């Protein structure tokens, strides 16, 4: 539509756009633009492409496949959280009703025997049971326990996460019962985390036995520094890789050459919002740091600073991303 430009004309326009024309070249260009309307239109067209090309850099910076993966990850996260909420209100509560009915029957049979229910909604709760066992319930956890233990075992029921410091009584094992698992101890301290499909036990002192509720042969004995996981029919044990497994209770985090991915995972355990590295971002940044009663956001900010990253809130998660150039 507009006549093709000569090499000299291109050269002049490009120098002008680059801001490197001499005064003489400026005058030359001005004269050419004034000469006819086609010249001006051609110039405008080239300039529009020039400007458009600059703004097209957005497309160069985008990684569509990575963002598709990221979006899906956030999306499933969102969906699985919704599932969990549903199971809290829809499944566990009826179980508690069953427990109350059982408690009602027990009440008739043995007059001093009563079932109590402690539900920690507003933060961490500490309780001392009748045998002297101390229990710290993490936020959202529920413990069903008798006012006094009778029978051959001391049995409580847990949902969510708790730390137990069990009073020693070798004649009467302490048993934590869930629908799927049994955790049996004599006297020890350990952390129990009941997930939707799994039970995780990490031992601080003493010995703990973790077994399937229906199959006593499926069992592991855990010693300090070990983590037992019960998922499906499988009970397995590993070395505990997370030195900060009690951070929800102690408020303390210690990182000693910890990789940034592990550190963020560990913080994520106690955080309302997930904490993670941006998809596809590789950060080789071993951390050496100690935090005591620091809010999640300030720990995350500090780690970002240490690794030359910055924090973004992305789909309700803290995401560590590259600093912009």
């Amino acid at each position, binding site marked *: *539509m507009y006549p*093709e430009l000569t*090499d000299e004309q*291109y*050269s002049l326009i*490009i*120098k002008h756009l*680059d*801001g*490197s024309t001499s005064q003489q070249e400026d005058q030359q260009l001005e004269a050419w633009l004034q000469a006819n309307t086609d010249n001006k*239109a051609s110039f*405008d*067209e*080239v*300039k*529009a*492409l*020039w*400007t*458009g*090309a*600059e*703004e*097209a*850099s*957005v*497309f*160069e*910076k*985008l990684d*569509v*496949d990575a*963002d*598709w993966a*990221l*979006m899906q990850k*956030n*999306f499933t996260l*969102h969906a699985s959280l919704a599932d969990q909420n549903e199971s809290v209100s829809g499944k566990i509560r009826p179980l508690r009703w069953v427990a109350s009915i059982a408690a009602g029957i027990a009440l008739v049979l043995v007059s001093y025997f009563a079932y109590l229910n402690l539900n920690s909604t507003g933060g961490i709760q500490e309780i001392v049971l009748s045998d002297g066992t101390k229990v710290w319930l993490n936020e959202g956890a529920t413990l069903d326990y008798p006012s006094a233990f009778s029978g051959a075992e001391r049995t409580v029921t847990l949902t969510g996460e708790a730390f137990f410091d069990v009073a020693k009584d070798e004649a009467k094992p302490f048993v934590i019962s869930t629908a799927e698992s049994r955790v049996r101890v004599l006297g020890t301290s350990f952390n129990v985390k009941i997930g939707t499909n799994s039970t995780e036990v990490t031992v601080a002192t003493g010995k703990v036995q973790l077994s399937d509720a229906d199959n006593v042969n499926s069992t592991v004995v855990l010693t300090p520094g070990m983590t037992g996981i019960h998922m499906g029919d499988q009970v397995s044990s590993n070395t505990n890789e997370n030195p900060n497994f009690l951070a929800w209770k102690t408020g303390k985090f210690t990182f000693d050459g910890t990789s940034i991915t592990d550190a963020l995972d560990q913080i994520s355990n106690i955080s309302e919002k997930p904490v993670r590295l941006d998809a596809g971002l590789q950060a080789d940044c071993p951390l050496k740091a100690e935090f005591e009663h620091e809010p999640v956001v300030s720990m995350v900010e500090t780690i970002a600073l240490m690794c030359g990253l910055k924090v*973004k809130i*992305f*789909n309700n998660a803290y995401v560590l*991303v590259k600093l912009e150039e």
Partner: protein
Amino acid sequence: MVQMYKNQNLEMNIQNLSNIALNRSLLRFMANGSNAKLEFEQFFKENYPLAVSFAVKFVKDLDTAREIAQQAFVNLYEKKDQLEIKTSFKAYLMQSVRNRCLNHFSRQQTIQKHHKAILDSSRESLDHQDQLEYSEFEHKVFGVINSLPEKCQKIFKMNRFEGKKNQEIADELGISKRTVETQISKALKILRKEIRVNSA
């Protein structure tokens, strides 16, 4: 300058064509069959860059724009069974992106500042339809840049994407400034030819 492309009414025709294609892919994934997710993935990959580029025009920050665009896609997917789309699917998506950008500003409680920014940018290119067309124009320019010969492409990207002056590029690559200018001329010649051919 954007106006020039609009007046030729060619951009509009291309947009209409792509809307028809988009509505087809929409119908496939709205049908909720076993391929629904695959169709959605395809739809995402075809339209995400444009949605981000559109959002950048409002929020002026790439990461925020990515977040907003992703939210708009997730929202579309979650609501796909309830949606009653009267215009094109893409128009709905872009409207959603735009609304989210505006919500973003009110969340940031910097409405006035950004409102001014929006008004200022509006004065340049009039309305959101134009903003969207401009994003599409840039997307096409990007496609052509990526098909330029290697050396030409490298030099042009250093200039346009990295904001380097011709002299800096010459120094960095150990070539003359004159060569840089020749390569940029070549890039612009090809862009001018290709964008024109595509539009005709």
